[in-house]
Each structure stands twice: as structure tokens, then as C-alpha cells.
């Protein structure tokens, strides 16, 4: 008895006490600590991918292949917002937070769906963004952190939604905006910037989580005197791109964050001779100082708009009888990369094609540097055709990793190609500056193909494809969730379905048609002993644009309805 009381007291001090589902409504809130982020409780979904490593994995095992057929909606909530909803629900002890396009944050009771509060950002009248979405919020202490479209870091009181403070990150007039969820570690909130299509110079910046004071800022395009600057010609580095569209992953043991970077600006490599570090790369940044501790570039002198913004998953795997502390990245260029991470560097291990790609002649087995087919490189005044198209083998929707199985699940797209010809565009701050106007970007599909979208399962030890589910009439635009119950959940298709797959076999075990197409990753959590699966359905942005192009080529229905709805499912008793 004494031991129980002591443990309860200790748990209370550490802020670990489980609050009932209506905790926030009753005025309580469980502060999010570094310890909780490093070892998240299975019942919560504290980060966009569930953990720092970016796995998209819930250890919860109540929902299984045996009972998933009984999954039914428990509640739904309309966000009242259109366009592409790309953020997962975040859940902290019975309180759910959802962010929508146009930088709105909604807090809900996770069990009942009861509305708690909404933060509506007043975007400036002259603000515009190519991608008006948000990929999520971050929790830390008693705050909710939002990277707003108009380039502010906003700290909200998690209990009320009131603004605690906000800090300007950059001037949106020059083309900068933010779409990612912040990353919080050891008292610092880190954000990165979008805007490569407007000729920005990308960076990651950290702020003190309490005060909002800037802590460090590291450009993803190195300036004069910095390593890698000599990979740029003339002043091209000043508007070199390397946007940071998505949240980094983090290895707490190494103290390193891993960020994916976008392609270079303008898009055509002959306008900026050199490798152009650190575009289309993964960069390792010290969470404490921002110091660059390593990098791996997927495409040197990038020319296909193959951003590599999705951060690599932090995964340890087996190779040749040894455990490698690794990074895993299914790249937009169509190759699945296994890398090695250390405090000093990122090393190359292997690259395996997972969709058809016709640009790489070969990949150097030691360095991972590709050799290109010259005729596949679009240049200024020279058209080139290439596969996959600029949307790549996998765009921003994240893959998931199931540690019980050692298996990676990739939302892939195949049998589509692109063609482009560059031109020199005059730079105007805040205006499109890629070297090609959108109507002139070519897109093609293999009309004889049996499928386009896919969910691919890969066993990481040995890099072998285990199964593939193919979508003959849709691309695959959904982030993936996998669970300790042996399931894979994802949406991503134009038919509005949310699906559960058997993680072992790839068999579709359950599906439910939602209000719209799902392009956000699902999440799982539990309240009062019940496991829930949740996802936000809300089609828009690139999937909608691409759907329009394919409807002209293949006759697919163009009108995928828009409008966001939060769905929460549980197994009916």
C-alpha cells in the first residue's frame, strides 16, 4: 500500500497521472515533457508520427485483424474548412488537437468529440500560398505550437486556445510560408520554411519553447565561408530553395534532428551549376545548437522537382550480421534508401528502386551518388521526359514502420511520368520563380498500366518487398499508420475510402467511405481502455490538381468532394 501511494505521488510529480477523458473540460491538462516525448505512452499520440523516430506506429493492440471488421464510427466533427487537410489528430490524455488549412487549430474531447476551443488565425488580406495546408501541431509543456502559413510561430495555451506568444519567422511577402508541424526537443521549438517555388533560401530555426526567443537558425543552402557553399555558382545560392516542408525526425541519444530538404530554385540545374548542397537532401542538425552534423544528397544538381522533404525514419536494422543505427527514406526519386547515422555523419548503405525510374543510370555503391542519363535531364530550352513525374514515387505522405515486424509501409505512386522544358524567368520577390509555368509542366501516365497508387510493404532487414496492394483507379496520397495489433491504416485514394490492411499479408480487412478523400495520416490512441483509430478526411492541394490532370488522361472522376471532417472509430462491442 505504501509503495502504491509512493508511486502515485511520484507519478503526480512527474505529471504522469492519467486524467479522465473530460480532463480539459474540467480544467486539467497533462503537461508534455521531454520524457514523455522520448517515450510516448501507447494511449497517446503526442507527435505527428507518434514518436520522434517518425514511425507512424501505435503499440496499441486492441484492434486486430480478427476484429477490425467491427470498426465503426464513434463520432465525427466537421472542421468547416475546405482544401487539403494533411494533419493527423494529436491526442494527449483525452484531449485531441487538429489543425486545418488556413492555420486553424481545434481542440476536442477525444472520447466524446465535444468541442473545446478553436484558434482562427487572421491571415493577411494579401497573403497567398501555393499549399495552404498544415501538417500538424506540436505539444510541449502546457502549450500547443503552430507554424502558421503567414510564417509566424504561434504558441497557444493548450487549455484555452489563447495566444501565449507569437514570433515572426520570415516575411511572407517574399514567398516564405510554413506548412510543417513544429518539432520540439529539450526546450526548443524548431520550424522550417516553405517557398522554394518563389525562390526563397530554406532554413530551420529554433526558438525557446517558453519565451519564444530565437535560439539558432541554420540555412539549408550554405552561405559564403560555410561548407558546401562552393557547390553553387555565383549568387545562385541566395535564392537556392531547399525548402523545409515537413517536420524533422529526432534521435534523442545522438541529440540530432534529421530534416528533408526541397529541390533547388529555379528547378533547372543548368541555371545553377554545381551539386547545390543541401537541396534534395537529408541534413542532420544538432538540436541544441543547429550545427550541421551530416548530410546525404539524393540528387545532385536537382532538375526534376523531386523534393525530398519527408524526413527519414530513424530505424535500426540488420545488415550483414550487424545492427546498423540507420535512417530509412523512401525517396521521391523512386528509390528506397538505407543510410547509417552517427554523431559525425550520415553514411550511405543502399538504394533500391521501388517504382519505375528512368533517370538514374546507376547509383555509386559506396557514396550513393547517382549517375544520370543525360537525355533525361530537363534544361533551359531543352525538353526532357522522365519517370516518375515531379510528384515522385512518394511525395510528402509519410511511410510507417512497424518495429514488431521490421516492416516499412510506403504510400507509392507508379506508372506516371513528366516532361519539362526550362526558361529563364525574371525574379520578382514573392512571385512564382521555378523556370517553368504550371500550364507548361507535362504529365503523362502509362495508359496500359494495371495500377497507379500502391501501398508497398518492405522488410527492412534484407530490403525485400513483402507485399503490394495496388489501386487501378487512384493514386495513393495518404500517410500511413501501423499498429501493434498487426494492422496498416491509410486513406489516400480518390474514392474516399479509409482502409485497414493486414500488415502481414496486405489483405484489405475493412474499409469505410468518408466524406472526402483522405490525405492526412491516421493516428491511434486510447481513452478509458478503448483503442480508437482516427483520421481527418479532406481532399485538396496537389492530389486535387493531379486528379484533374488524370481525369483528362484516363477519365477518372475529377470532382472529389472537399471539406474536412475528423473521424474517430472503435470496435463495436
Amino acid at each position, binding site marked *: 500500500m505504501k509503495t502504491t501511494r509512493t508511486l502515485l505521488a511520484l507519478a503526480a510529480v512527474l505529471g504522469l497521472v492519467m486524467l479522465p477523458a473530460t480532463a480539459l473540460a474540467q480544467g486539467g491538462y497533462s503537461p508534455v515533457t521531454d520524457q514523455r516525448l522520448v517515450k510516448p505512452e501507447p494511449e497517446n499520440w503526442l507527435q505527428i508520427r507518434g514518436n520522434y523516430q517518425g514511425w507512424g506506429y501505435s503499440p496499441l493492440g486492441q484492434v486486430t485483424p480478427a476484429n477490425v471488421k467491427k470498426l465503426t464510427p464513434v463520432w465525427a466533427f466537421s472542421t468547416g474548412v475546405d482544401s487539403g487537410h494533411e494533419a493527423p489528430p494529436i491526442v494527449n490524455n483525452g484531449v485531441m488537437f487538429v489543425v486545418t488549412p488556413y492555420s486553424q487549430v481545434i481542440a476536442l474531447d477525444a472520447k466524446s468529440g465535444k468541442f473545446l476551443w478553436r484558434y482562427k488565425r487572421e491571415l493577411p*488580406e*494579401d497573403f497567398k500560398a*501555393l499549399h495552404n495546408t498544415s501538417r500538424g501541431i506540436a505539444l510541449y509543456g502546457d502549450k500547443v505550437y503552430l507554424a502558421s502559413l503567414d510564417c509566424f510561430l504561434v504558441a497557444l495555451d493548450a487549455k484555452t486556445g489563447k495566444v501565449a506568444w507569437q514570433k515572426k519567422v520570415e516575411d511572407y511577402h517574399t514567398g516564405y510560408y510554413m506548412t510543417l508541424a513544429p518539432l520540439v526537443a529539450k526546450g526548443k521549438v524548431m520550424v522550417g520554411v516553405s517557398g522554394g517555388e518563389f525562390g526563397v533560401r530554406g532554413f530551420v530555426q529554433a526558438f525557446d519553447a517558453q519565451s519564444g526567443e530565437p535560439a539558432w537558425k541554420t540555412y539549408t543552402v550554405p552561405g559564403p565561408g560555410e561548407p558546401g557553399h562552393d557547390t553553387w555558382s555565383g549568387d545562385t545560392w541566395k535564392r537556392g530553395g531547399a525548402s523545409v516542408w515537413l517536420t524533422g525526425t529526432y534521435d534523442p541519444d545522438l541529440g540530432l534532428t534529421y530534416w528533408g530538404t526541397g529541390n533547388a530554385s529555379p528547378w533547372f540545374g543548368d541555371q545553377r551549376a554545381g551539386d547545390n548542397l543541401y537541396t534534395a537532401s537529408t541534413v542532420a542538425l544538432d538540436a541544441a545548437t543547429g550545427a550541421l552534423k551530416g548530410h546525404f544528397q539524393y540528387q545532385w544538381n536537382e532538375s526534376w522537382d523531386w523534393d525530398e522533404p519527408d524526413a527519414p525514419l530513424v530505424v535500426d536494422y540488420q545488415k550483414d550480421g550487424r545492427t546498423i543505427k540507420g535512417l530509412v527514406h523512401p525517396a521521391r526519386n523512386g528509390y528506397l534508401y538505407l543510410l547509417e547515422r552517427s554523431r559525425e555523419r550520415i553514411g550511405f548503405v543502399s538504394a533500391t528502386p521501388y517504382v519505375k525510374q528512368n533517370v538514374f543510370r546507376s547509383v555509386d555503391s559506396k557514396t550513393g551518388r547517382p549517375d544520370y542519363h543525360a537525355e533525361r535531364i530537363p534544361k533551359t530550352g531543352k525538353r526532357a521526359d522522365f519517370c516518375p513525374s515531379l510528384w515522385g514515387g512518394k511525395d510528402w505522405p509519410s511511410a510507417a514502420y512497424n518495429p514488431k515486424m521490421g516492416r516499412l509501409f510506403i504510400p507509392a505512386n507508379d506508372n506516371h511520368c513528366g516532361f519539362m522544358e526550362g526558361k529563364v524567368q525574371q525574379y520578382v520577390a514573392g*512571385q512564382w520563380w521555378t523556370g517553368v*509555368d*504550371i*500550364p507548361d509542366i507535362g504529365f503523362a501516365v502509362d495508359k496500359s498500366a494495371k495500377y497507379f497508387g500502391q501501398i508497398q510493404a518492405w522488410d527492412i532487414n534484407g530490403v525485400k518487398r513483402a507485399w503490394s496492394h495496388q489501386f487501378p483507379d487512384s493514386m495513393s496520397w495518404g500517410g500511413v499508420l501501423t499498429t501493434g495489433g498487426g494492422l496498416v491504416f491509410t486513406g489516400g485514394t480518390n474514392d474516399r475510402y479509409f482502409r485497414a490492411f493486414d500488415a502481414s499479408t496486405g489483405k484489405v480487412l475493412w474499409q469505410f467511405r468518408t466524406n472526402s478523400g483522405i490525405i492526412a495520416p491516421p493516428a491511434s490512441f486510447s481513452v478509458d481502455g478503448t483503442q480508437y483509430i482516427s483520421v481527418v478526411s479532406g481532399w485538396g492541394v496537389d492530389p486535387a490538381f493531379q486528379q*484533374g490532370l488524370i481525369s483528362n488522361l484516363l477519365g477518372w472522376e475529377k470532382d472529389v468532394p472537399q471539406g474536412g471532417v475528423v473521424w474517430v472509430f472503435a470496435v463495436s462491442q
Partner: protein
Amino acid sequence: MFPFGDREGQLITLEDLPLGGPQQLAYPMDPRTKTVRNGSTLNLISLIRFDPAQLTEETRELAARGVVAYSAICTHQGCPVSMWEAHAKNLFCACHATQFDPRDRARVVDGPAPRRLPMLPIKLVDGVLTVAGGFTGRVGGERPS
């Protein structure tokens, strides 16, 4: 006036507008005070020159020698309609790919914009393209409520 680039601030003449497009973006200038209204991108205008016979009658009424002027701000989400779909000769919004037909009061041909671009009536005064009236509709994009 040319809004940016090498000729920023210079007057746009009929000869600067290629017949059949693409559009030339412009900022208006107050002819009395010579103030260029470039304080906000909401003031951006698209100028396109067509053979007047290609314009609908309704469009021709507000055009000058085949030159039409529209707000360059998309009615969807306020992005600049700065691109040109050369095949169909339509105005094209870079953000979400709405196409507007400039020969027909900027009717929405394709894409998510909910309404046409507001047209700005123009006339030629001493050979200068001059605003002849207010916009035919509200300038700017939609915002969520």
C-alpha cells in the same frame, strides 16, 4: 504601368501587349497625382489584347481596341493569376490551377475558383489605356468563415 522587372514604372502601351496574349501584369497609376497604386498586390491587373471580334459582346463593351483588363487576384484564394495557358489562351492561376476565359468576362473554365475575375472597364485616352469605371465585382479571394 509595368509592375516589376526592367521596365518597372513605365507606361504600358498597346504595342506592349501581344495580340492573343499572354497577359501583361500591371499596376494602375493615378493620372493626376502620378501615384502608382502598388501598395498591395490586390491592385494587380491583367491586360490582354485580342482581336475585338473574338470577345463576347458583353466583354467588348468594357474593352478598348480589344484590350481587356481584369483583376489579377484569383477569386479562389487570392493568388496572382500570373500564368497563361497557351493552348486554350486562358488566364491560369498558379496556386490551384483555375482557368479563366479572358474573352468572356473571365468566366471560370476549369478549377476551384467560385466566380469569375472582376473586370475593369478601360478606354483609350490620348492613346493611353485608362480606367473607365469600377471593377464589375469584388476583388480578392475567399476565406474560410
